[in-house]
Each structure stands twice: as structure tokens, then as C-alpha cells.
């Protein structure tokens, strides 16, 4: 028979509990190529399990690029955006441009009752006081609400988001920071609608105008762009 297909190799390497058919087993016993690939994938999975939280990469501060430009005397002065925006794991500079009506900046000013939960693990230790807070209100025709706290602790900036009443999704919820210039947005990661979450925010992002906190419902279609299906939203005050 032919070599095992890559997903089968990965499944085997991960030790997923799926028995191979007799044909596959016979092939594997005889095929060095497939066994080598499995071993390679297994080593990679082992390496992955060695990852520690402090392996998450810290972007170089923007002035490093300025120094490179100065030292080399380049004409190219395009700022190199620091390249990690992270929730669970940092993300590269997949900043997405988004064209938002200027009114978007005014979102989040509506008052009302609120009972958002915060992460239970955050309730144990005393929390630093948020430097900015906004309610997250449903967009037209949507249900749910929440609250987002911007927290600065040491050198780190985090956004702590608690949500209530988001419907069980077809797909998943994603948390975004949208710039009030209506042109740029960044993804902070997947938001669990039952527990909320705390997300690392690159320093100075909010002072650059990324103050609109947006939760979107994303279909599991492999497309990284914002689905345009925003559910709740609010704007952090300056």
C-alpha cells in the first residue's frame, strides 16, 4: 500500500487513541520512511510539551528598528510593528485593517445593569486596580454583555474580560482591539464565553488608539479575518 497519509502519521505520533487497520500496521512495520516521519513528529510533540510560559516571545521594542535604520542609514523608515499580539500564545503582526465608522468610537457609553464574571483564578490573588474599564454592550440584534478591565502590572498590560449571556456559538468567540481611527485592529485571541479571560496586550497599544474592545463570533472556516459578526463591544476611556 501507499505511505500513510500525513494526518494518520500525526495521529500516530500524538498517540491519539485510534487503532490502525491491519494494512496500515503491515505497511508501518515495513516502511522506514513512515516510521522516520512519525519519529520526527513525535520529537516535535515532545519539544512542544517542553514549552514554558516564558518561552512566549517578547517583541523587540520599536526603538530597536529605529536604531537599525539609523545605523544603516536606510531610507526605509516604515515603522516595523512589534510583532506579537498574544492571548494564549503571542501572535505575529497579523494586524488587520478594518474600516470602522467613526461613530464606533462612541460605542460603549450606554449604561445599564451589569453582572459580568471575572476569571475565578483571578479572584484568589489581590488584583491590581484597572487603569481603564468599559462595559461591553450588545450590538443591534445581539444578546450578551460584559466588562473589560485594562490592567497594568509591572511592565505588562493585560485586558481582563468577563462576559455574560453570550449564546452557545456555532464557531468560537474572538476578542479584538479596534483602533478608534477605524482603520486597524488586532486579535487578542479566542474568548471562552463561559469563563472570560485575561489577555496580554502589547504595551502602548491602547495609547495608540486601540481602545475599542470587540467580541466577534467567528465561524471555524480557517479565515483569520474578523467575521464582521460583532456581538458585544465597548470603548476604553483614555
Amino acid at each position: 500500500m501507499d505511505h500513510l497519509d500525513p494526518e494518520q502519521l500525526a495521529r500516530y505520533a500524538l498517540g491519539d487513541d485510534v487503532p490502525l487497520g491491519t494494512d496500515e500496521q503491515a505497511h508501518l512495520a515495513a516502511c522506514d520512511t513512515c516510521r522516520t516521519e512519525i519519529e520526527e513528529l513525535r520529537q516535535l510533540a515532545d519539544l512542544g510539551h517542553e514549552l514554558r510560559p516564558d518561552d512566549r516571545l517578547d517583541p523587540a521594542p520599536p526603538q530597536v528598528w529605529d536604531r537599525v535604520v539609523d545605523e544603516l542609514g536606510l531610507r526605509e523608515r516604515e515603522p516595523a510593528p512589534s510583532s506579537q499580539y498574544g492571548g494564549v500564545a503571542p501572535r505575529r503582526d497579523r494586524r488587520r485593517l478594518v474600516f470602522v465608522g467613526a461613530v464606533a468610537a462612541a460605542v460603549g457609553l450606554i449604561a445599564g445593569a451589569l453582572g459580568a464574571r471575572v476569571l475565578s483564578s483571578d479572584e484568589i490573588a489581590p488584583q491590581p486596580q484597572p487603569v481603564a474599564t468599559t462595559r461591553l454592550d450588545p450590538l443591534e440584534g445581539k444578546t450578551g454583555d460584559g466588562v473589560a478591565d485594562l490592567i497594568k502590572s509591572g511592565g505588562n498590560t493585560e485586558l481582563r474580560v468577563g462576559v455574560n449571556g453570550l449564546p452557545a456559538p456555532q464557531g468560537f468567540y474572538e476578542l479584538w482591539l479596534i483602533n478608534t481611527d477605524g482603520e486597524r485592529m488586532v486579535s487578542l485571541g479566542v474568548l471562552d464565553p463561559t469563563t472570560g479571560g485575561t489577555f496580554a496586550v502589547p504595551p502602548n497599544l491602547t495609547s495608540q488608539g486601540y481602545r475599542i474592545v470587540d467580541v466577534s463570533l467567528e465561524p471555524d472556516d480557517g479565515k483569520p479575518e474578523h467575521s464582521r459578526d460583532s456581538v458585544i463591544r465597548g470603548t476604553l476611556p483614555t
Partner: protein
Amino acid sequence: MVSADRVLRVRPVEPGDLSAAEVAAGFAAGHEEALAEVYRRWSALVHGIALKMLGDRADAEDVTQQVFVSAWRGRSTFDPTTGSLPAWLVGITKHRIADRLAARSRDQRTLAAVGGIREDMRAAPTDDRVVDRLVLADEISRLDDPRRTILGLVFYEDQTYAQIAERLNLPLGTVKSHVRRGLLHLRDRLREVTGGPSGS
């Protein structure tokens, strides 16, 4: 209140989504905008490796600057037809880190000579396993969600597929499929950057 359709014609900011090969070719040909793109793509990794090995932010920033300056000045020694640009950059990074550690070691010897201090803190060589781990962390961070989050939960937090499925409200089969395809993708990426999961 703003309706959802006010938001969002979305496009990625990355200029033209250049392929890695196009960026490498532009870099070798001396296009400054290719250097900027190379910096955007790889500076976090270079800086991350330097910070991990040197443990000092100022030193890590200096090394990051040096790596991109010497990469640009030495671009004629990079052949995009035979090697991968990230692998080449990682190689330069290791050299600059070794230089910095050697300089520290010299400083310590000087101190030892002056003050009778024992010379017991020799510079450690860069650990390839650590570099591989950071390359992997960098590549995980480049995945698109939900795959990025799922692989992060598998590797950083050792969560089971069932836990992840419940936490993200995704079907179990979807989670498994993302892990498998993600692993295959990461394998391909590490082959390019380091020559293999266990380093070249």
C-alpha cells in the same frame, strides 16, 4: 449603537502577502523594504532568543540590532537558492550572542584579576534545544485562530483534547484535526528554520 455592518471590511496589513521566497530574494537583492519585512517577520524570534540566552533586556536589544545590521551588511553572503533566511538569521543570532557572552566573560576575568573574584561564571554556549523551543513558540504564534489557541493549550498548558473542546466550545473532532494539521504544519516550518525538530 453601531450595527455590525459598520465594521469591517478587513484585510491583512502585510504588504501583498509576499511569500517567504520573495522576501528572501528581495533581501538578497538589497531592497530596503525587504529588510523591513524580514524584521517584521523575524525580529521577535531573534530578540526572544537573545533575551533567553542573555537574560538582559538591554543586551538583547543590542544583539537584535546587531543581527539585523550585520545581516543587511552581509546579505551578499546569503544565497536564497541554497538556504533559508530564518535559518541564516538564527545562525547570525547565535554568533552575536556568543560574542556578547565572550565579552562578559572577559569582563569577569578582568574583575577576577582585579578583585580576586573566582572565575566561576563561564559563558554558557547557546543551547540549540532552547532555540528550537523558541522557534516553535514563534511558529505557534503565527498560526491563525482557533488553531493557535488550541496548540497553545495542548503544549503550554498540557490540556487534553476534551478539555480544550469544552473550553473553546468546539467539537472534539475539530480540536483533534487542528492539532494534527497544526503539528504537520509546525514540522514543515521547523524544517525550514532549524533543519528539523531536534536542530540541525
